[in-house]
Structures are given as C-alpha cells and as structure tokens.
C-alpha cells in the first residue's frame, strides 16, 4: 500500500525535476542571449565613456579595456572652456525654442486634421509626412541664403525655425494620433456646457492628450538635438551648436580624443533625461500615436 502510494509520488517528483531542469536550461539560454545583446548594444557607449576618462596619451598608446589612470580632466576642459560649454547652451536654446514652436503650431493643426474633414485633408496630411522624408541637405542652401539675406544668420531662432521643417509635421502626426483617441462627443459636450473653443482646448482637451504632447515634445527635442547639417550651416560663432563644436576640435597638436569623447558623453545625457519622462509612451510615439 505504501509502495503503491510512494511510486507515483516519486514519479511525479522525477517529472517535476526534469521540468525544472528544462526551465533552468531555457533561462540560461535567455540570459546568455540577453547578455550578448546588451553587450553589443553597450560596447560603443562603454568605449566612449572609457575614452572620456583616459588621457590622450593612453588612448593613442595602446589597447586598454579600462582607464589605467582615470582622469576627469577632459570633462573639466569642457565645463570650464566657454568655447565648449557654450556649444551646449546654444544647442539647448534652439532645441527648446524649436520644441515650443513645433508643439504650439502642431496642436491646432492636429486638432483640425482629427476633427474636421475639408477639401484635400488626406492629401495635405500625407504631404506633411513627406517633408519628414526629404533630406535636410536639400534645404541647407535655400535656408542659408534666405537667412543671410534677412539677417537671421547665426541666430538661435534661425536654427529653431529651420528644424520646424521636419519637426512640425512629425508633431502633427503624433498629436493627431492621440487626439483621434479622444471621442468627439467630449468636444460637443463641452460646447453644449458653454465652453468656448480656446477654453475647452486648454482646460479639457489638452489634459486628455497630455501624454501625446509629452511624446511629441520629446521627439521634437531629440530630432532637433541630433540634427547636425542644418544647425552647422546656419550658424558660425554666436549660435554654434555642440555638434558643430565637436567636429572642429582638430588643432595643431592633432585630434583631442579625450575631450571629444567627454563631449560625446555629455551630448547623450539630455536625451537620456527626457526619454525617462516619456518612457511609458515612447512606443506609441514611434507608431505616430496610432496604437
């Protein structure tokens, strides 16, 4: 009797054991794959950080996986030398300007596209996206000439306006996707309750698409932050962006590798900071608000 009871129990235990082994094998495989994946993703970033903490002599001297004599001198150079840190200030100024302009302009446009149908609305909406597809190089020359002739050359607003070219359509698309998710009946209820359009838009509607506004602002920020060609073409000294500064570090003594790497690290930081705020909505943003 005891035997009869014990046998199935042991069998069950054996079965559980093999199942557990299979599970642990699977988890080992997934850990290995994940580790490799992360490794490949992070190697360039690690190498950048690694370089930024070395001296030029060590960088050029040979191969070392980590800094032998870690130094913050490179960062110090950037944070004390105005010709370096003003690059960040300039970039931030025109990026923030651009984000503000893009979102402010895109909000009413997106509302119109999401709520009204008018002649050629679909074509216009698609045409907006094609702006996003044109290479900025195409626009560099006309912008340069135009801004030079009206005296906007080498100002922050010049770059901010130029970046609207691709950021406004993007923001319109993202915001339209979010707005479409808000039932039209809410608008109508608000009008029936007596809200005027501006009041409704600010008090009722914008809180409803707050995440959409955040995502749109994030994308505008990022694309403006990483854009190099237009910002470099349209500036010389007063509004010189950090990316342009970084490409001009070749001096008589050769390339300053360490400082350049430190500048690279500092350039990644603002993006990483803003991405934190919209981390939950980023996928919806990449799908242009259509999930």
């Amino acid at each position, binding site marked *: 009797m005891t035997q009869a009871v014990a046998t199935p129990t042991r069998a069950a235990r054996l079965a559980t054991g093999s199942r557990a082994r299979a599970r642990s094998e699977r988890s080992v495989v997934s850990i290995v794959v994940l580790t490799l994946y992360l490794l490949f993703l992070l190697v360039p970033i690690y190498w950048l950080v690694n370089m930024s903490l070395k001296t030029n002599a060590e960088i050029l001297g040979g191969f070392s996986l980590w800094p032998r004599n870690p130094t913050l001198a490179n960062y110090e150079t950037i944070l004390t030398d105005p010709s370096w840190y003003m690059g960040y200030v300039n970039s931030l100024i025109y990026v923030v300007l651009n984000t503000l302009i893009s979102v402010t302009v895109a909000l009413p446009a997106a509302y119109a596209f999401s709520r009204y149908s008018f002649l050629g609305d679909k074509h216009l909406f698609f045409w907006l996206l094609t702006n996003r597809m044109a290479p900025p190089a195409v626009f560099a020359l006309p912008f340069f000439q135009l801004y030079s002739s009206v005296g906007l050359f080498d100002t922050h607003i010049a770059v901010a306006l130029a970046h609207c070219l691709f950021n406004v359509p993007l923001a319109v698309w993202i915001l339209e996707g979010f707005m479409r998710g808000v*039932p039209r*009946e*809410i608008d*109508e*209820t*608000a*009008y*029936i*309750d*007596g*809200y*005027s359009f501006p*009041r409704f838009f600010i008090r*009722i509607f914008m*809180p*409803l698409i707050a995440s959409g506004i955040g995502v749109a602002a994030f994308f505008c920020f990022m694309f403006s932050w990483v854009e190099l060609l237009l910002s470099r073409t349209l500036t010389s000294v007063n509004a010189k962006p950090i990316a342009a500064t970084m490409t001009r570090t070749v001096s008589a003594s050769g390339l300053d590798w360490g400082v350049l790497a430190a500048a690279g690290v500092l350039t990644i930081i603002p993006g990483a900071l803003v991405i934190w705020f919209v981390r939950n909505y980023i996928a919806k943003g990449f799908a242009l608000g259509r999930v």
Partner: protein
Amino acid sequence: MTLELRGVTKVVGGQVQIHPTDLVLRKGTMNVLLGPTLAGKTTLMRLMAGLDQPTAGRVLWDEQDVTGVRVQDRGVAMVYQQFINYPSMTVWDNIASPLRLQGRPRAEIEERVTRAAALMRLEPYLRRKPLELSGGQQQRCALARALVKKAGLVLLDEPLANLDYKLREELRAEIPRIFEESGAIFVYATTEPEEALLLGGNTATLWEGRVTQFGPTPEVYRNPLDAVTARVFSDPPMNFLPVAKRLAQIQMGAGQGLPALGRLADLPEGVYQAGFRPNHLRLDRPPGEALEFQATVTAGEITGSETFLHLDHEGARWVGLLPGIRDLAPGTAVTVWVDPAHIYFFGEDGRLVASAPTPMAA
C-alpha cells in the same frame, strides 16, 4: 417653452439623412424618438441641439428662430450613449463646470451641485475622477451635469444602451422622476419599443430618416398610422401576411376566410396586408374566434421564461413570443392561432385601414 422643427432637412454628401420634418415639442413633455439604428435619431437630436445645421428648414425656440445660433448659446443639455465626462476633472468639478461657465456665485454652485449629486446618488464619489467609477455611475455623472444647468431642452441619446440590464432598469426608473422635477423638454432616443412604453409621454417613430408618426406613446402603439410604424414599434417586429377582401370576406392564405364585419365592412375590395404582434401568436387554440395557420419552425430561442419561435409561413418570416418553454426542433410543422381581434389591416401603400380593436389585451 416650445421647440419647433419646421421642414428641417439634413443632407450629407448627397444622401438625405433627415427628410423634411415638422415637430412641435412642448414644455414639460417627455418625447421619445423611437427607431432602429441608422434611422436618424442621433442626427435629429444633433439638429435640435444645434451641433449640426439643417440643410433646409428652421429650428424655432419659443417662436424665435435659433437655426444658426451657436450651441454654446442655445441652453441645451445632452447625454450620449457613451459615458462622456471630463476625465481630468473630479466628479464634483464635472457637475459644476456648466455653472462655473455661466459665472454663477459660489454658494449657488455649491447648492445646485449638491442637489444634482444627491438626485443622481453620487455623493460618495464627488472627489473621484469619472474613470474610476463604474459605467452606471459615469452615466449618472453625465446626467447630473446635464441637469444641473436647468436647460430648457434635455437631449438623451440612448443613455442606457451601454449599461448592463440591472443598471439600466435602475436608471430607467429614475429618468421619469428627474424629468418630473426639471420641467424641461426631454427628448429621449431609444431603439427599444419597451423603453418608449415605459417612459410614456409622446413618441415619434423614425424610419430611414423620416418621422412616420408622432403622438402620445400609447396612442402610437395602439394605432400605428402605417405598417412601417407598426414594425418599428414592435419588438420583435410585427408579423405580416397578404390578404384580400372579396365578397364581404377577408381571405387569408389557404382558403381561410374571415367575415368582413364591423371595422372591416366598409373596406373596398382589394388586396391588403394583415399584421399582428408576436405576442399574439398562439400554439394552442384560444377560446372563441381564432384563425389557423400552418407554419414550419426555423429556430427557437428560449430565454428562460419565454420562447421566441421563428416560423416560416408560406415564405413569410414570422416570430412568435410564447410564454413558457417550447422546445420545438427546427423543421417541425406547427399549427398556430391568432385571434382576429388582434389583427391590424394595412392598405397596399402601407397605410393603416383598420386598427385592431383590442390591442390593450397584452
């Protein structure tokens, strides 16, 4: 206060959504718009509210033409089938928002919001956001917001359609009570004849963008002006069969005749349509006079205490609503009975020519 529609028409993209409509709704009346989906109930309401402009015709409010007036200036309230509230505001702020926009003093807002919330039994939830409430509570919040401003015209567009059965019963009992208190013109759209009968008041039946009849609800139910109205105001739809009057006899199907007496005596000879409601179909011969029909069962739906029997009678699809459980397999041949007193007669053009004398009996 009166709301009057004069020849109101709505055409969208070359398609007529509302045919020329004349309606007069008086102060303190409950008006039901009854019709299937796509009949134009919502469109008609939007025209009344001023959310849409009519293609032709005028909307009058107290004899004043308000056709082009902005919806903000109309003094109407509307509740949708979807639970529409302002998600970013608390329930209290939701209810208070129309009053704040009117610039009412704080004390008055306080008092009126408290009363509306009490009426809709929302007191425990005033500090919550609408999306944290159940569907029924959300809809009550929307109703409270519509009532608090004391609009002269309250439009309810299938307000209970998205609620479950229990909540629907509960709110449906409350709506006439709210209505009594408000003294406004209520317009209530629904697809369910039962709801129209429960609410009472007046009913306008809609079919494909046309108001087919408007009058006191029981009156419309008892004496539908035409076959379309009878079909709309019957759930499941009315059963029809072609008949002919010849030599003082109403001939029905296979050689069965009904002496054309009383209401039928004056009818000219010719072809007619007879109609009767599903609940008047019987499987057992009723006492007294009864007409007999042969039919085949096509399907049976048992709802617990009642059976919906779908029948085929010489190509016409009939539905019988029978008390109790009748488990009949599809394909079974059955004999069904109808009391001639329950039969309506419609002319070839669909107009009612002879009403059923005893529709009250059920």
